């Protein structure tokens, strides 16, 4: 049978605020356990939540970036359940009226663009962490993360493969980091996905029973978990079984998903409007203000790079992989004579390789756009060859400095002026009359012999193109 896969993602993006969503505690990562758990985060008797304006700003920014509707009035609700990392016994979230609804994200898989619809995005608080290392068989609870603001972004079940799910997650990741609402650090849990996966015979209208795979915090795990889950569901149905709606966890060590038994008992979250929080009102003026501050979005910039600079969609995609990448490229461009293709090649080639070698982000590059631009300018005007430029790039990377000064100091300047090249060529011809005769008799291969000798004679500094011209001219003469 031919199976169709149906996937929807729920993504939790930790919002890049200084303080928590409902308290004045810090959200910084890595503090000593419970050092950043304030009275409110601990749910001491009598404490109350007050909403952080910056978290709302982030939600508006996201809504505007995806063409969604930002609600003029939204409601915070309590989701009630008991868990030791949930100090109040309820999570403050949004339920019936979220701050953002609708919107789309565009993805590209195998050269094919698709629009994925978003259901909603809502504000909520994160829970703490349970640590299971040995405390005499007990668990330790750290509530530093409790109350960290999250934007939960829910997609429609529009994704049809693990690859599409990953492309969507990557596009979302690029967007939330681009607009600065999330640091995107997946190891620290700042961006994590739950995948709802089901399968159905192709052509069948009604959806199959879905399973939710929780807490996938890398693109690779997301892909592998979904692939495993698809296989599991198809095999199960083909063997005459039925998929049970449940929550599953992905175990990367065994590359499989397994049922979360503790969440099996029928959940009834008893959502109701949080009486401690009044309705969130977002006026048009606030939305306008956020809109005015919004940067050019990655999709638009990618398109612009192809339109304005004649770059391929692929190159433009690489250059807009992150906002810092795009910023680097745009800073580099004027320093390098606005040669977009040359800049694109260098950023995605030498620079990317060097960054990769040292696991650096582009904003931490050892070679600044100004330094690289200075180098590329000398490639453009023929002062140095591409090969020399690569060597010099390594020097710049290792030792810093400036291209012109290095060229000067190392005497690397290309010999491009015709009279100097003519002098070299004439001397060579006088030295090797036999080869000159061979060439003139039609043995064109000998040309390469002269190029090699001329390069050597110039100490590798002869401008190859100029040398070609001079050689051809002189050899042909008489």
């Amino acid at each position, binding site marked *: 049978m031919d199976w169709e896969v149906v996937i929807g993602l729920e993504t939790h993006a930790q919002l890049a605020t200084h303080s928590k969503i409902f308290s004045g505690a810090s959200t910084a990562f890595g503090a000593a356990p419970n050092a950043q758990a304030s009275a409110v985060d601990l749910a001491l008797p009598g404490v109350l939540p007050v*909403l952080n304006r910056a978290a709302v700003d982030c939600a508006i920014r996201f809504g505007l970036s995806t063409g969604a509707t930002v609600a003029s009035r939204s409601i915070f609700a309590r989701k009630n359940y008991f868990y030791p990392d949930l100090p109040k016994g309820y999570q403050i979230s949004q339920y019936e009226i979220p701050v953002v609804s609708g919107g789309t994200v565009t993805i590209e898989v195998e050269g094919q663009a698709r629009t994925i619809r978003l259901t909603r995005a809502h504000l909520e608080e994160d829970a703490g962490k349970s640590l299971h290392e040995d405390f005499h068989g007990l668990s330790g609870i750290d509530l530093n993360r409790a109350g960290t603001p999250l934007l939960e972004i829910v997609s429609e079940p529009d994704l049809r493969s693990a690859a599409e799910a990953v492309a969507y997650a990557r596009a979302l990741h690029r967007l939330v980091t681009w607009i600065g609402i999330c640091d995107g650090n997946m190891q620290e849990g700042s961006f994590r996905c739950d995948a709802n996966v089901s399968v159905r015979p192709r052509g069948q209208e009604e959806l199959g029973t879905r399973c939710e795979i929780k807490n996938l915090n890398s693109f690779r795990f997301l892909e592998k978990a979904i692939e495993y889950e698809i296989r599991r569901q198809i095999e199960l149905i083909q063997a005459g079984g039925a998929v049970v709606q449940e929550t599953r966890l992905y175990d990367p060590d065994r590359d499989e998903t397994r049922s979360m038994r503790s969440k099996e008992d029928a959940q009834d979250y008893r959502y109701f409007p949080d009486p401690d929080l*009044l309705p969130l009102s977002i006026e048009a003026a606030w939305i306008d203000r956020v809109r005015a501050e919004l940067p050019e979005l990655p999709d638009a910039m990618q398109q612009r790079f192809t339109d304005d600079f004649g770059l391929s969609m692929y190159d433009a995609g690489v250059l807009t992989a992150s906002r810092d990448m795009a910023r680097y490229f745009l800073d580099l461009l004027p320093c390098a004579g606005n040669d977009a293709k040359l800049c694109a090649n260098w950023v995605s080639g030498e620079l990317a390789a060097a960054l990769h070698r040292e696991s650096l982000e582009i904003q931490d590059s050892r070679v600044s756009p100004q330094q690289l631009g200075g180098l590329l300018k000398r490639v453009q005007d023929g002062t140095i060859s591409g090969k020399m430029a690569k060597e010099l790039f390594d020097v710049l990377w290792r030792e810093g400095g400036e291209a012109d000064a290095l060229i000067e100091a190392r005497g690397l300047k290309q010999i491009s002026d015709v009279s100097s090249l003519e002098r070299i060529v004439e001397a060579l011809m006088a030295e090797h009359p036999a080869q000159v005769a061979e060439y003139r008799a039609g043995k064109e291969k000998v040309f390469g012999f002269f190029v090699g000798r001329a390069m050597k004679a110039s100490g590798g500094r002869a401008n190859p193109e100029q040398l070609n011209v001079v050689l051809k001219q002189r050899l042909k003469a008489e």
Partner: protein
Amino acid sequence: MALTDTDLRRLARLARLRLEETEISGLREQFAGILGLIDQLQAVDTHGIEPLSHALDLEARLREDVVTEMDQRARFQSVAPQVEEGLYLVPKVIE
């Protein structure tokens, strides 16, 4: 409406309240009275009436995004039942 013993056990489970078997019949009886009271609402015509969460029609007031809370772990954990190395200890959490 009346609550069965099964209903009461399910509610107690949701609310994480251990119910002794001896408590159940008394509760069932009290609940009959309480439901009799609140079921009066079912007869009220509220067609077209918006639910009201707060008597005063106010909007959320927002905080500025500033860290105002300092580390008070020692003070807060001085009233905790069981802590070790700054962590609250509980029976093993099984996921």
